[in-house]
């Protein structure tokens, strides 16, 4: 299955909850999708500056820099290249902060998620990235 993923692309799970990071990494590894983890928005930005390309699964509620602020920082630092952002959140209805960055949010997944559903969403997003 790994050969169906565009070369050089991977997935980054950004979540301050270690249990979620581990669950997502195991789910995607089972699907042969390469994945790395970041425990904060700052670490996500660091990976982007280091050249990460692919799909970012971004938790909404994180201390200091939340999901929306992380997106704002990505845009401000001109790092929105070859990435797709999927929000991963426990909130059924996002707050108003989403309005200003909504065009950068490709999809919105509510926790808890089913393994199959997550993998399908990630594969669909990866497919949108140019090879």
């Amino acid at each position, binding site marked *: 299955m790994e050969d169906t993923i565009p070369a050089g692309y991977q997935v980054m799970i950004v979540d301050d909850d270690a249990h979620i990071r581990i669950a997502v990494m195991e789910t995607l590894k089972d699907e042969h999708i390469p994945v790395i983890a970041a425990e904060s928005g700052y670490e996500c930005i660091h990976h982007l500056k280091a050249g990460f390309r692919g799909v970012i699964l971004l938790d909404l509620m994180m201390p200091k820099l939340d999901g929306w602020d992380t997106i704002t920082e990505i845009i401000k630092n001109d790092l*929105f*290249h070859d990435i*797709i952002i999927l*929000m991963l959140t426990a909130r059924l*209805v*996002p707050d108003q902060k*989403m*309005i*200003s960055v*909504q*065009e*950068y*949010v*490709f*999809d*919105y*997944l509510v926790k808890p998620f089913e393994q199959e559903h997550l993998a399908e*969403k990630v594969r*669909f997003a990866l*497919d*949108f*990235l*140019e090879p």
Partner: protein
Amino acid sequence: MQTFKTLIIIGSSTGGPQILRTIFHSMPKLRASIIIVQHIPASFTHSLCTHLQACTDMTVSVAKAGDTPQDSQILVAPTGAQCMINENKIIDLSVTTRVHAVCPAVDCTMLSIRENMYQQIVGIILTGMGHDGTKGIQHIHALKGITIAQDPQTAPIATMPQSAIDTGAVHNILKPEKIREKLLLFR
């Protein structure tokens, strides 16, 4: 190609690309012109066209200023301009201000439609955050067009279709598969 008589305008935001794939899956040529206004970063507009083209027999392309929409054609509004239709049925991309914090906003496309321009007008609001499409769907309703909202229970984010529904101007609240069936009536 024949000049189109039916115009279908679809507004979509977060989670929309996958919903659009469901709607246009194996979609044959329709006797209608479709304009899709998807809130998406500019770098993915062409990718969206490529994905839709793989689903349907209709011709899919990014809308350009001066285009005249045709039957069996899907135009995807480019990011960074409001996709409006002037009275000569020509695409106008000259306005670049954001509306509802987005550009393009489907409200701008829908509100640019004038009476008697088409035999039939259809307005559809899919998943998304906020109120884009709410005024537009009321306008399409006032022009005696057909108005459809995605069933909010099937939307990754329900506020955009719910906001349209709350106006009382939506004729049909449908799951994506049923929206597809509705569009097939224009074969």
